[in-house]
């Protein structure tokens, strides 16, 4: 059972306080978007073995959403950060690079 640090309230809590919310940094495609873009936005989700970026909610806590960079194999958590951002902060990317040189995830590396 994972422990995560909520960047919004600072609680280091166990997984039962949190709720997973799927892939991070989704780009919304609304009316006017192509069938392909919209399809991918809804259904083509990342499911990597290794470095992954996810959304979590501190559901039994401050209620805030945040992002987590973690490894789906080793379960290492590289860091958690604000949900109000379009890409992982450089500091988080550096932490991942230090552990997994040459990683890439979607358009990020």
């Amino acid at each position: 059972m994972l422990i995560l640090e909520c960047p919004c309230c600072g609680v280091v809590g166990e997984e039962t306080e949190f709720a997973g919310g799927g892939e991070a940094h989704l780009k919304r495609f609304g009316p006017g978007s192509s069938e392909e873009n919209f399809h991918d936005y809804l259904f083509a989700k990342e499911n990597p073995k290794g470095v992954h970026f996810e959304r979590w909610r501190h559901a039994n806590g401050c209620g805030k959403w945040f992002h987590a960079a973690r490894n789906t194999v080793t379960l290492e958590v590289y860091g958690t950060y604000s949900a109000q951002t379009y890409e992982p902060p450089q500091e988080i990317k550096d932490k991942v690079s230090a552990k997994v040189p040459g990683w890439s995830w979607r358009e990020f590396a």
Partner: protein
Amino acid sequence: MSKAVSALQGASYQGYVTVEELGLRGMITLRGDLASAKLKSAVKVAAGVAVPKQRKVSLDGDVGVAWMSPDELLVMVPYEGVEGAIASIDKTLKGQHYLAVNVSDARAVFELRGDAAAEVIAKLCPVDMAPGQFGPGDFRRSRMAQVPAAFWMVDETTIRIVCFRSVADYVFKLLKDAAEPGGEVGHFG
């Protein structure tokens, strides 16, 4: 006008820790920019205490303000004083983007009293209740068995818990079960 009643109307239980429902308490959910001077002054006017820091509670007897999230406070005042407090907040924050709403009746408040009060919480919440890890002034929202709850310490032997009104009966029975004599753990010395 009929008298408003709390969910359990002051039910209590005497175990190795005493459990008591405290009746109706005035509570206001206040959302806004916690760093703003106006909000700070609104809180000061409404509750007489300062805006607490992250995961802290500012208390002055039964009146106080708890930090709920980066943009939310729980303002605790006497039940009868809620409308007045909201009015004063509305006045101070007029023109600001904020939300102040009465949630007094949406909640139930419990108090645990006894040397082993923290132990009762530690049976139900995934929180480190050891002395030094959680103490007076700290405020924590977490999971209590199967429902969300928040709690804080009034002093080393007194803990208050807030949960939703609809699960007051469940939470009371949980606390009662955990406080039943024969369940002493003695982990916190």
